[in-house]
């Protein structure tokens, strides 16, 4: 952290903004509107994470290659998701099915709660 950056960064102000964003992320989903929930919960989570990484972890002051390795790790996460989600998220495919998952989906559609012991 450079002296100039340390002098100019108002950490308390950043913390206060993070708290305001926290309040919004809690109150937004209470409207029970899907788009608002996505924006206020997950959109704001991304903003909060960016603020912490930039202002508290000082990633922007580290050599550029540090950003590259961080981004690379995030890309690995996306590759993992893209490679496995097509199978994991399907309940059935060509020559295979997940009976327990299909049953759980049917129960949910029928309004059956299943209790604490359900496995799906």
């Amino acid at each position: 952290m450079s002296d100039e950056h340390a002098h100019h960064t108002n950490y308390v102000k950043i913390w206060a903004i993070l708290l305001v964003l926290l309040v919004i992320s809690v109150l937004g989903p209470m409207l029970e509107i899907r788009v608002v929930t996505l924006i206020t919960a997950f959109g704001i989570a991304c903003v909060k994470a960016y603020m912490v990484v930039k202002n508290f972890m000082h990633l922007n002051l580290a050599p550029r290659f540090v950003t590259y390795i961080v981004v690379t790790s995030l890309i690995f996460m996306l590759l993992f998701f893209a490679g496995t989600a097509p199978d994991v998220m399907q309940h059935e495919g060509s020559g295979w099915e997940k009976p327990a998952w299909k049953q759980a989906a049917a129960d949910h559609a029928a309004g059956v709660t299943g209790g604490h012991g359900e496995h799906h």
Partner: protein
Amino acid sequence: MRPIATTRSTAGLPTGLLAVWWVVVSEIVIFGGLLASYIMHRLAHDAWTAEAAHTNTWIGAFNTFVLLTSSLTAVLAHQAAEQGNGRKAARLLWMTVGGAVTFVTVKAIEWTTEIQAGYTLTSSTFWSFYYTAAGLHALHVIAGAIIMIFVATAAAKNRELHRVELIGIYWHFVDVVWIFLFPLLYIAK
């Protein structure tokens, strides 16, 4: 950029700092894999909405407040260390440890309540993810607090002040992980 650490330097930044960033990157893959798995299962199971409804949003929000505040004290400790004020840095690090203790205590109370209500690690896949993700994160909080105690003890004697920044970066990462766990486990209902 004028780093505190004056020990061996590789790749243009102090060795310790490089090592911590590698730790963070490794942790992104660990938590990223876990969260990606959770998200794809969550999207595939509408029934999880009902299960997630049993998590306590207010407790999650309080713990988010605690971690954000502990990140503030951690970065202020770093700032104090930059100014060569080891005693102040140590004091702020102890406040951060206090935040960690508060977080884990609240988490313990929360889990006790949920387990007593019948929601355990084996109740369903949702609760398995819940306890695994939150539990792995809590272990990181505990590990960070223990390391911070050693760093604070040395900092109080104005020794190894560069370590204040290193434990701070780790701590902020633990905060970032929780920033994503909070909406995933407590808000998406």
